[in-house]
């Protein structure tokens, strides 16, 4: 009953994909175990350069695990085993001799809860540069202003850069963390539920920011909020129980998903 007679109804919905420039990250048949527990099952997925890719799925589906694999944050967890490859700009990120610190510099990360360092706004943003050994005040000032502007926070904090970052509101703190994450111009921005601790206005500001940063950066965002995934992303990957169920352009996934499980999840019929 689902086969459409070709002669009468045809697909007119074409989804032009603006701003895509090939894949920057290739996840190839990637599996992961936490001890005996397999958390990811043979995920194959290409992240397109300059676009926003959303990872969605119910709790425990492996979306955050997958995100943390991209910059090898899971290396820090005991008993993790992996199989398969993640290729970033043509390089296998698990290849022997890979500089993990360098890898993480090229992939900025923003977490669920804003995590500013207990220091001034200024010092927070230029922290990654200082770690890199940049000492010149004028260079630091330039990066701080550029990053805060890019994170849409400049106007709100420009007169109090020396104040403690902890005095900012939750939404401002999260934008500060984004400013810090983009301060040394990473190629990819990984966001793990960046709005889940924020109110709707602060959420809207982050979403607007994601929109503005797309193109300059490749963004991978994990979100529980499906409307958010629909609003901010170009591509959406739906995961369930450690498997990639469906991956496609966001408009298709949210209007005419190919797989019934995706349909059940995004329409609120799951479980």
């Amino acid at each position, binding site marked *: *009953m*689902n*086969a*459409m*007679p070709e*002669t*009468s*109804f*045809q*697909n*007119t*919905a074409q989804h032009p994909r603006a701003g895509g420039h090939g894949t920057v990250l290739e996840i190839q048949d990637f599996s992961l175990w936490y001890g005996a527990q397999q958390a990811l099952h043979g995920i194959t997925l290409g992240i397109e350069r300059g676009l926003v890719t959303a990872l969605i799925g119910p709790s425990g589906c492996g979306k955050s695990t997958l995100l943390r694999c991209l910059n090898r944050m899971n290396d820090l967890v005991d008993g993790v085993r992996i199989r398969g490859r993640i290729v970033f700009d043509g390089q296998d990120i698990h290849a022997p001799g890979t500089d993990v610190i360098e890898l993480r510099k090229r992939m900025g990360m923003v977490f669920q809860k804003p995590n500013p360092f207990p220091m001034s706004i200024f010092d927070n943003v230029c922290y990654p540069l200082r770690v890199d050994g940049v000492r010149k005040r004028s260079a630091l000032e330039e990066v701080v202003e550029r990053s805060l502007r890019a994170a849409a926070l400049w106007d709100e904090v420009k007169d109090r850069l020396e104040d403690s970052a902890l005095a900012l509101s939750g939404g401002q703190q999260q934008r500060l963390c984004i400013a810090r994450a983009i301060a040394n111009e990473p190629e990819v921005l990984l966001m793990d539920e960046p709005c889940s601790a924020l109110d709707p206005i602060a959420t809207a500001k982050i979403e607007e920011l994601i929109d503005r940063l797309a193109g300059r950066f490749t963004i991978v965002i994990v979100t529980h909020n*499906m*409307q958010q995934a*629909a609003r901010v992303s170009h591509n959406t990957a739906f995961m369930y129980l450690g498997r990639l169920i469906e991956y496609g352009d966001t408009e298709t996934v*949210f*209007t*005419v*998903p190919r797989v*019934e499980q*995706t*349909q*059940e999840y*995004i*329409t*609120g*019929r*799951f*479980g």
Partner: protein
Amino acid sequence: MLHEHTVKTYEEDLRNLKAKVQQLGRLASEQLERAMGCVTRPREEDCARVVRDDAELDRLEREIDADVLRILALRQPMAVDLREIVAALRIAVELERIGDLASNIAKRSAALEALPLVPPVGGLPDLGRQVGRRLERVLVALSRRDLEDAAEVWRNDSEIDQRYTAIFRETLTYMMEDPRTISAGIHLLFIAKNLERIGDHATNIAEMVGFLVTGREATGDRPKGDDSIEVSRALGPSRS
């Protein structure tokens, strides 16, 4: 088969919406049948009743409108649910229009009854039956979400168009032969046109069923068999 929504009131909202669209479909179908009854046996009280009862269809359509707005605002529907809701909104408009056309047929039947000379055009009841079957068929396709049946309705619009063209030709001939039949002839033409348009609305609903099931819009030209313009050119007086 999809499972039910986790939020039961959402499930109920959607079920009620579907039920209202089906009910509006039944009412439109009944109105058409009764309007055609007025064409064959025009009794004043019957005609008046069809016209009066059209208000119920209008009311139901407004109710569906309000429900759709509320569900969109409160539930942020996605995928098949979103299509279900958009289709309900559009189908309700089609059905309400069918009701208007049926009511107009009843009105014209009453007017015909008062005229002294009505051309004996025989094809109307047949056309009415054909259009009625078509409407019923598309409503069943809608309730079953049956793509094949909807596509079948969509493809077979040309028969109705051909029958309409035949009535047009016949009525025009009577009016040319005897100008006293013109008033009645015009009513007959409008009734035939209304029926043909109800057929078109059924086609639109068939397209909506396709959209609902597949998420795709119908494309390409609809099969057409309405040659009434050519007929009027051939039969009517030329300018030279």
